[in-house]
């Protein structure tokens, strides 16, 4: 067995997820496990990572692919150091997300779905992130940034490494 990617530390993290569910329903931990795998791999998943998660959770590989391709937070191509997930759903749209998108694209010189040549930023259009009260908003890493204006966006980006 060449479980080379799932180090004991990663397995320990996945085990915490497995422990949350009934003993015979290991596969319930698939989303948590994929998130751990994605973080360990620099923000995106490869087939080998997904296969190893499938083997670890004793579930069919195709079932892991299904989950990993259904949810938009799993990436299947390399992403930049900071993934900017911009909400363009109805509340954000009404509150000016178009302007935010335009500003981001102009400032970073890339279109939605692209990564800057220095691999620092990836722009991604996402559906509602449940922060309508602070529209328009985007998510970078684990942080939500709300009530965005072009100035505020510049400020946030300037502060990022």
């Amino acid at each position, binding site marked *: 067995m060449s479980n080379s990617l799932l180090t004991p530390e990663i397995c320990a993290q996945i085990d915490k997820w497995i422990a949350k569910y009934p003993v015979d329903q290991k596969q319930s931990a698939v989303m948590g496990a994929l998130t751990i795998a994605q973080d360990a791999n620099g923000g995106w998943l490869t087939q080998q990572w997904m296969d190893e998660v499938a083997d670890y959770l004793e579930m*069919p590989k*195709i*079932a892991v*692919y*299904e989950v990993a391709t*259904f949810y938009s937070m799993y990436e299947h191509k390399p992403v930049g150091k900071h993934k900017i997930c911009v909400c363009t759903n109805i509340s954000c749209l009404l509150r000016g997300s178009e302007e935010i998108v335009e500003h981001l694209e102009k400032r970073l010189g890339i279109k939605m779905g692209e990564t800057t040549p220095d691999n620092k930023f990836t722009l991604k259009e996402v559906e509602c992130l449940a922060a309508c009260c602070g529209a328009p908003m985007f998510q970078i890493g684990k942080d939500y940034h709300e009530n965005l204006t072009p100035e505020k966006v510049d400020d946030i980006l300037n502060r990022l490494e």
Partner: protein
Amino acid sequence: MITIEIDGKSCQAESGQMLIDVADAAGIDIPRFCYHKKLSVAASCRMCLVDVEKAPKPLPACATPVMNGMVVRTRSDKARAAQKAVMEFLLINHPLDCPICDQGGECELQDIAVGYGSDVARFQELKRIVPDKNLGSLISTEMTRCIHCTRCVRFSAEIAGVREMGATGRGENMRIGTYIENTIDSELSGNMVDVCPVGALTSKPFRFTARAWELQQRDSVSPHDAVGANLHFHVRRNQVMRAVPKENEAVNEVWLADRDRYSYLALQADDRLTAPMIKKDGVWQTVEWETALKFAVKSLHDVSCQHTSAQLGALASSTSTLEELYLLQKLMRGMNCQNIDHRVRQADFSDQDVAPLFPYLGQSLSDLEQLDTALIIGSNLRKEQPLINQRLRKATLADRGLISEHVKANMMAINPADYDFNYPLKAKITDPSLIKALASVAKALGADIQAESCENGQLIAETLKNGQNKTLLIGQFVQNHQQASVLKSLISTIGKLSGSKIGYLAESGNAAGAHLMGVLPHRGVSGKAIENKGLNAQQMLTEGLKGYLLLGLEPELDSRFGATALETLKKAQCVVSLTAFKTPAMLEYATVLLPIALFPETSGTYINGEGRWQAFNGAVSPAGEARPAWKVLRVLANLLQVDGFEYASTDDIRSEIGSFHLETPIADNSQCNPLPNTFEIPTSNELQRITEMPIYAVDAMIRRAGALQKTTDAQKSTGIVLNAQQFAHLQGHDKIDVSQNGQTFELTFRLEETVPQNCALMFGGQMLGNWDGFLTVGES
């Protein structure tokens, strides 16, 4: 029972039944795509929306349980409008390539679009395009046509029991497939072609060869396993273009194993024998039938005159029809010769006089679904009997659909290697000799024998004792074991002590027929004991006779003796082979080759493992000069002046067979030799050879079905498989030398955990030494 009304018609239904099932039973058509009666309900296509009184919106008939007094309209304006709207959505992304689509003319989407759709498309935008993946040699894909019904996904998860297909992505980007380039390896994969309502999954060998409306449908029965699956051959201009299942709930339900579906490809095999051939003065020549028959008769006659008729022997394939087998033994016995057999893979004949009348499943195929406990002994069941395994899988399912945490039946296995099952096993023992394992179970049940006890043996015994509806299934590894009689005695004892039924898994679709027709050296028709017993297959193939008559058999591949059989046959004075194919080996040993029809080309009867008689007619006429074997045997008998061969058709033969009253044969599967008290298990410091007859090598037709030979299962059934830990040091080598009885073969090898230590798994259907014994391996 409750009463509901559908389209003004009053229908009786069970409470909780789905509306679509009630409508189907009442003959009321509701359009559907994702619903399939053998699969779980997805309710995703929405095509079956109907108008239910008091419901505010149309409801999907496939997912709406009926309630007493429900009033349903399937054709009201509301229902029609819903159906038309769904149809329009389904067609948005569906390409208009029906003229070049294999499904055209037999397409559910096409048919329902005509019945329920609109005649004009309003969609102006671009249609979705989905790239195809190569799924292997059996299924071809055109995924742009897919309407996401998920029938294939549910089929692979629920029936095939291996999740190979899935729905990846979502919304507009959802795709049905394997996600990565991966072949579909299930032994039932061809059924995905049937369940696909559109032309997304089609049969690869059939692709672009015929249109549905050019085909005529002829019924037949498949001879490749104990099920005897019912099928339709689709024929165009006297050529079988494809095979599809014929629905028969009691036999194959609506499924076919890939073996049954694609064996027709052998009809067009490159090495098909299409004209009689004789070897005169060492040179092969193609001749007229009359010349060949006379030559054959003279050769056989010479043997019986120069020696005695006891120097003749007949060996038959048990995929031959009942009529052919009956005539073969009648001919041989008419010549006063009892050397007749079909058990070419059997090694132990010591209990043949007490053995059951025929290899009887011990129950009906559908009974298998009701089992709560089963012990599979010596069988790679998934590959050996794909549809029987499917029935057992069904028995373990708590409900239609996936195996849930509530497994309904306790399945257990005792096998020489750790074979894969697509349902959970409560207990298993991997024991290359099988004897130790069975003895431990028997002992745990209280048998008075000397045996080591083991934990799993205890568990199996305990589970069998507690089961209500239980059976022991005897597979090929037991039937072909060197100590088969001892194993069968042990199994019989376990059966008696635990109160379990015993079932044999017959190796082919007419092994039962061959037994009942007396294609045996010690029993005549209907099992009547023969006084002067003839030689059995093993004796005939190893000790050597002067003359042989072969019926549809390639002993060098079909038997357990491989190269030995070839050498024995080569020494014979004459070998008359009734065969559909000619091989280099055959040209070496035979003196006459008489071309015979394959089962799609002849009429006849097969008796399956449950004792069911199934008659069929030829779908096409035989290739070239080939003739049905019964006609060849009839003429041979006439020329050999054996009386009683005035048959005009297989019906005549069948009515003569009918006089033996075997329509509902009964076999007592508990019959066996007395149980010994101690057991001898051969040991050696060499590797014990385990031989499996692989799924795609079981008979001459299967070995020539090109598409099956390209499957992963076929590719994996070559070379030798060794224990991964024990032989880790061989990693990196391409081939190894394998020595058995002084012979050495250079073979490819695989390392697997499934093969026990000190064992080597090899595959039948090749000319590679005897099936059992010990061997050594070394770096080549």
